[in-house]
């Protein structure tokens, strides 16, 4: 029974990791850009929400809805004025630039918000839970998992049901030929990064609701996100969700065996999946 409970808690934790990973997966899928600053941008979004909360006294959920458009615009500007300048045949320049952005973001956050651990005060909902049969599930972790499903579902709808989504996929396939179809790849990329940072903002909301954060925790979130994307298979959004759940469940079981093993167990699961399926669980059919 305790193991079943561990499994459920792991799945709930996995929802958070899937949210970390969804934005990374989106950006990688469309422009083959590995954004090494993704974790730090999630932390940045958490501070944006925190900033809105402390300035206005709002509930973090409402503050997050204000932060969403702010982060979209920030992502759009970031792509337009920074990433688009370095995207090209060579994969090294974008890696270096996003790595640099990671360092800069951490240091700016340290400068403005200090190294103190912070948390988003969610109010009464934080302690509330529902009992489903033998399981007691926290409302916030449930909302996290529900949001992860909703985000992946919405992104899939966007990708496969809308003109913008077709532009995303066409640009992902061939960013030169789309220009002859009247599509501006750099604008497509800017919108994609804007959306990715909106997803990062949702991830930040639940990150801040669940645990403490400080300016230095970005790189570890990036690592979990990266592992989730790879486990799921590059370019597959549902795969990314599955990848997040795998990491979450592995960490929960690791922690149940010995609290020191939580992080290690996640990494071991990553290695194990790669050994069995080197291209991830749901690789794209014809790459």
């Amino acid at each position, binding site marked *: 029974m305790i193991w079943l409970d561990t499994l459920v808690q792991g799945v709930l934790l996995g929802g958070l990791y899937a949210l970390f990973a969804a934005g990374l997966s989106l950006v990688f899928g469309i422009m083959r850009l590995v954004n090494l600053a993704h974790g730090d941008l999630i932390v940045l979004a958490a501070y944006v929400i925190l900033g809105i909360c402390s300035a206005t006294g709002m509930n973090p959920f409402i503050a997050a809805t204000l932060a969403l458009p702010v982060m979209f615009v920030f992502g759009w500007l970031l792509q337009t004025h920074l990433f688009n300048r370095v995207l090209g045949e060579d994969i090294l320049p974008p890696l270096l630039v996003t790595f640099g952005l990671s360092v800069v973001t951490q240091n700016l956050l340290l400068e403005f918000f200090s190294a103190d651990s912070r948390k988003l005060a969610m109010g009464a909902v934080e302690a509330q839970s529902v009992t489903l049969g033998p399981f007691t599930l926290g409302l916030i972790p449930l909302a996290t998992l529900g949001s992860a499903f909703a985000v992946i579902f919405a992104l899939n709808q966007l990708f496969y049901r809308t003109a913008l989504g077709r532009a995303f996929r066409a640009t992902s*396939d061939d960013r030169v030929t789309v220009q002859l179809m*009247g*599509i501006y790849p750099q604008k497509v990329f800017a919108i994609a990064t804007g959306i990715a940072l909106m997803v990062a903002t949702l991830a930040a909301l639940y990150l801040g609701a669940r645990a403490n954060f400080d300016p230095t925790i970005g790189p570890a979130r990036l690592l979990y996100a990266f592992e989730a994307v790879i486990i799921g298979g590059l370019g597959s959004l549902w795969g990314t969700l599955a990848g997040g759940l795998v990491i979450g469940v592995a960490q929960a079981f690791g922690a149940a065996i010995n609290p020191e093993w939580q992080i290690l167990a996640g990494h071991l699961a990553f290695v194990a999946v790669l050994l069995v399926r080197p291209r991830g669980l749901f690789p794209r059919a014809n790459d």
Partner: protein
Amino acid sequence: MAILSLQNVSKSFGALKVTDDVRFELAEGEALGIIGPNGAGKSTLFNLIAGNLRPDEGVITLSGRDVTGESPMQRCASGVGRSFQIPQPFGHLSVYENLLVAARFGGGVSGHDAPALCMDILRRTGLAESAAKPAGSLSLLSRKRLELARAMATRPRVILLDEIAGGLTDGECVELVATIRGIHGEGIAIIWIEHVLHALTSVVERLMVLNFGKMLMIGAPDEVMASPEVKEIYLGIEV
């Protein structure tokens, strides 16, 4: 007025002049064939017209408007459609979606009108039955058809066809030529680079010969093909 005109257009890659003082006008609805040996600068000429390359010298106009400095996206919006020698479908999109992308973003067709337009083009290019297939799974003939169909979906006024008949069997070639003739019949101007001469000459009204980036000749197909110079350079026949 000419739909497309090139005036003294030149382009060099380093010391190599790949397009050398090319000048011609394409009338509304006209079909022009381009022939020339490999490396004559035929595809470069298409890159210049479609906006993938900027000329070092010269002016390119569409319906009298100078578009020399415009991007491929702007040229597409101004009515230049292009098919590639080596088909470049969006492999993860279905055949139908390939056309939708072209129609919405290239042709400026509304979301409401795009499906009907795309299905119509698919029917005319013989792709209706493949509409739902991933474009990456198509045979060579179907890929070539898709190149044509996708260029059509951008609602071009001039369409650039780059060796679209190359690599096809005779039977396939005949089908494709019939489709191209249909497009020409709708009044869309065509510039067609092709090595399969009988396919080309059965459609075009004028033929241009390129060699080392220079225009050697332009005129009626039989006149051009009868020229000793062309026979020697292009067909490799000693005269």
